[in-house]
């Protein structure tokens, strides 16, 4: 095993294509990723709103279970692909060290149910692993069809880089942009890449949440993006699935495809589109973009 994998609830529902494409890409790069046995929900933002301490205990159970898989090694790297899970797990670790009284209770609570906990798991984002462990050279060497001529707006969302800057800049991150360059795509200069998509507000108070998503998409389109690449199931849902509702509310049809960055990697690697969950997109990638990919950008007509 190279890495442990924490899927999160969304990967079994709305975010299923993220998991499919992530697994396919890691397989293609010969990197092994094993799912954490009997993982539970990370707590996301909702759990924190009700009871902070229980939220930390909830996330910490996953950390304890991960340590069990360390096989006597000093620590273990666990990949969390969803932004909310990534933050939820890291936040639990920080709270346990920052608030010792809370830390003691959580550690004792875990031990009482037979889970030892030493706070030794490294939570990693797939972008971090791809860029810092695997490296652009190895990724570029696996590319079969360069995404030449495809203009990508890289959307990081909030919670990967904030509040904790773990592997990239907090206001203007670059890892995904570099990754897209490595697979031959062009990235657009889009300063809204860490501006909030609205999160769960798009469902609870749509008048506000949808406007945030709309602003992001409209600006990406204005800057010439063919596609928006995301790294979070909720961002992807907000930006893609709500475009119909946005058209109704704001009277403008955007029709901008929104994919996971791993799906674009898979296309560049020449993996079958079903293995990448491309068929699950509401707004399909336009045929001319896909054929350009297959031709490796040789016959680009402008």
């Amino acid at each position, binding site marked *: 095993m190279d890495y442990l994998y924490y899927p999160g609830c969304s990967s079994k529902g*709305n975010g299923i294509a993220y998991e499919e494409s992530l697994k396919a890409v890691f397989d293609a790069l010969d990197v092994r990723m094993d799912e954490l046995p009997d993982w539970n929900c990370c707590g996301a933002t909702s759990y924190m709103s009700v009871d902070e301490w229980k939220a930390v205990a909830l996330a910490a159970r996953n950390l304890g279970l991960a340590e069990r898989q360390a096989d006597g090694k000093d620590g273990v790297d666990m990949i969390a692909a969803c932004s909310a899970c990534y933050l939820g797990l890291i936040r639990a670790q920080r709270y346990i060290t920052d608030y010792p009284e809370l830390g003691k209770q959580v550690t004792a609570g875990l031990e*009482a149910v*037979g889970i030892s906990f030493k706070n030794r798991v490294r939570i990693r984002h797939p972008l971090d692993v791809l860029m810092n462990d695997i490296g652009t050279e190895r990724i570029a060497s696996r590319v079969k069809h360069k995404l030449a001529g495809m203009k990508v707006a890289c959307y990081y969302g909030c919670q990967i880089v*904030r509040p904790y800057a773990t592997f990239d800049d907090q206001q203007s991150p670059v890892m995904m942009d570099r990754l897209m360059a490595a697979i031959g795509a062009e990235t657009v200069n889009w300063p809204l890449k860490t501006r*909030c998509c609205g999160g769960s507000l798009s469902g*609870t108070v749509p008048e506000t949440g949808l406007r945030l998503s709309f602003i992001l998409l409209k600006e990406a389109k204005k800057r010439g993006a063919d596609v928006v690449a995301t790294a979070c199931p909720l961002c992807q849902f907000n930006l893609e699935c709500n475009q119909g509702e946005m058209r109704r509310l704001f009277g403008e049809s955007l029709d901008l495809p929104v994919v996971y960055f791993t799906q674009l990697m898979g296309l560049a690697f020449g993996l079958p589109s079903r293995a990448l969950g491309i068929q699950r997109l509401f707004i399909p990638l336009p045929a001319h973009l896909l054929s350009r990919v297959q031709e490796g950008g040789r016959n680009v007509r402008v």
Partner: protein
Amino acid sequence: MVQQPHQRRIKYQAELDSDFGRQIAAMPGGEKVYSCIQCGACSGICPMSIYMDYSPRRIIAMIRAGMKNDALRSQTVWLCASCYACSVICPRQIKITDLMYALKQRAIQEGAYPKRFPIPVLAREFFQTVQRDGRTSEGRLIARVYLRTNPWRLLKQASLGYRLLRHGRMSMRRESIRSREELQTLLRSVG
């Protein structure tokens, strides 16, 4: 929110809870509430502040002034989408997002939130589902929240739900972990 002309604009000391600021300062995230210099950088960068009844800067001032009721009943705390832009930009390193979480918790404890406002309802439904099963099932969770707050929206969203189902992106199955009792014991032991 625009101030209504008939609304009283002053507060009497008897209406304030002078201990409120101290209580919030004792919660995770509240530590630095007294070092706020009221610069307003948080309100400027917050993408939601234009929809809030009080800007984040005002909320901090209200906490310190002891305006407990107004702060806990505000929509502001529930409209925070947890994007942490304010926490990163704050020159005094106040964890404003965590402060909002502290207020949300107090508002739920004291039942001081708008009853049919879907955000706290979502938080509580989410909390209960995870406490019971260890995981959430998006489809079931969202259906329950709409049923409790605005059943009309459930009907309006039916076509989106159908599309999600057809694309294999939603299931109504109840997800659960194996060691549910272990998790429940753990959660009972903390807090």
